[in-house]
């Protein structure tokens, strides 16, 4: 068959565009949002009493509780297993759920609560932001909320203190709905080509007047707090209120609910490995192996951990520290220790830990370590 015989049949040649062919339009091989299906939750599946002072990661990997001001609302965050509903029948078995456990019906002006996702600048270069060829952004997700009405989701460029907001409407209470939110391109402000935090995505759950008194910033502009969340309903005003989200995808370009390419499902293993660039929980609960080390001296135990994947940056140790929570075992003896600290030689590719306060070992002997309490845990954090 010659090339001249290959035609598009009854469809006009110029009617077949990239946006109409599933997946072909993407310049990225892997999904830009890591763990968008909420499958990985290394720290645990439930965290209670999230409120002022709780900013950070608690359950589902990569998605953080975030707040501004001093909100009094309290929340339980869970990794939820789905067994029914529109998100479930579209292939999502997990979601992130925010349950209001203490309501705040009257927000102080500077109060706001968001679910926050952060992205490295080097993973955003394909948006060509700050250039003449800057691309539009499309954010799609499944959401279920008790509170109907207008909700705000924001892109915040941390490198240049610029932001843009979009809205989505929850039409039916406590019903999974698929939302596609478009954001314009920005020819101002380049994302840093490095491993630092460049773009924040904030899904607002509440916002005081310091965030709502202006007109919503629907085109990219310099930071203007009063324009960040105008129109946001207060989802934290009743303890009956819940908000759930899953199936999050960020796409290069502009799509509608009809043209958005399908969510890129990854295997659990691939998803976990991508999450582990930022956090690795290596032991949780009692009698869990940690690693092997040796006694530099009787009171100085060194241990080296080879991480599962290379960290984004030099990690911290995230550890439970309490009496006898860990064991050092070898040379026909065992010592209880409270925790391990980080050594300065640690890099993003190799971790060195030590204990010098609890051990009494035999110099030069090898020892392995494990947890010794149901509440013991050890992780490494290189979060953005």
């Amino acid at each position, binding site marked *: 068959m010659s090339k001249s015989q290959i035609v598009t049949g009854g469809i006009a040649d110029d009617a077949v565009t990239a946006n109409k062919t599933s997946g072909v339009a993407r310049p990225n091989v892997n999904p830009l949002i890591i763990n968008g299906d909420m499958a990985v939750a290394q720290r645990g599946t439930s965290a209670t009493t999230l409120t002022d002072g709780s900013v950070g990661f608690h359950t589902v990997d990569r998605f953080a509780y975030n707040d501004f001001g001093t909100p009094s609302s309290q929340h339980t965050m869970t990794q939820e297993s789905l067994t029914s509903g529109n998100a479930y029948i579209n292939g999502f078995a997990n979601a992130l759920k925010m349950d209001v456990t203490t309501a705040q019906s009257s927000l102080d002006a500077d109060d706001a609560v968001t679910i926050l996702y952060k992205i490295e600048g080097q993973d955003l270069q394909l948006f060509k932001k700050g250039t003449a060829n800057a691309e539009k952004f499309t954010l799609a997700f499944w959401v279920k909320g008790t509170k109907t009405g207008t909700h705000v989701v924001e892109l915040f460029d941390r490198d240049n203190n610029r932001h843009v907001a979009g809205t989505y409407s929850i039409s039916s209470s406590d019903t999974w709905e698929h939302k596609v939110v478009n954001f314009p391109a920005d020819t101002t402000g380049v994302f840093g080509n490095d491993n630092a935090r460049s773009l924040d995505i904030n899904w607002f759950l509440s916002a005081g007047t310091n965030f709502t008194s202006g007109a919503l910033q629907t085109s990219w502009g310099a930071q203007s707090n009063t324009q960040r969340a105008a129109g946001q309903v207060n989802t934290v005003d009743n303890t009956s209120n819940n908000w759930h989200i899953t199936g999050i995808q960020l796409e290069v370009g502009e799509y509608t609910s009809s043209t958005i390419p399908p969510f890129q499902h990854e295997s659990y293993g691939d998803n976990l490995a991508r999450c582990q660039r930022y956090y690795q929980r290596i032991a949780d609960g009692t009698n869990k192996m940690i690693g092997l080390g040796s006694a530099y001296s009787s009171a100085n135990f060194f241990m080296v951990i080879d991480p599962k994947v290379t960290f984004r940056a030099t990690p911290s*140790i*995230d550890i*439970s520290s309490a009496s006898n*929570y860990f064991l050092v075992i070898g040379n026909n003896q065992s010592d209880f220790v409270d925790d391990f600290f980080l050594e300065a030689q640690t890099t993003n590719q190799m971790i060195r830990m030590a204990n*010098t306060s609890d051990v009494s070992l035999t110099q030069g002997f090898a020892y392995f370590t494990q947890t010794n309490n149901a509440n013991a845990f050890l992780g490494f954090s290189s979060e953005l």
Partner: protein
Amino acid sequence: MIENVKKINNLGEFACYKITYPNTIRVTYAPHDEANTDYQNILQWVADGNTIQEAD
């Protein structure tokens, strides 16, 4: 919310910062690395008027 930050030394040299938080057994041992978020949080905590405790 950081409660306290203390330097940890080993064999006479700086090893890391120990960060404690109120009402939890969770602690963080953070490197002296500006790309590390926990170290960034220490810098902000100091900028807010707090003081890092020297090593024993």
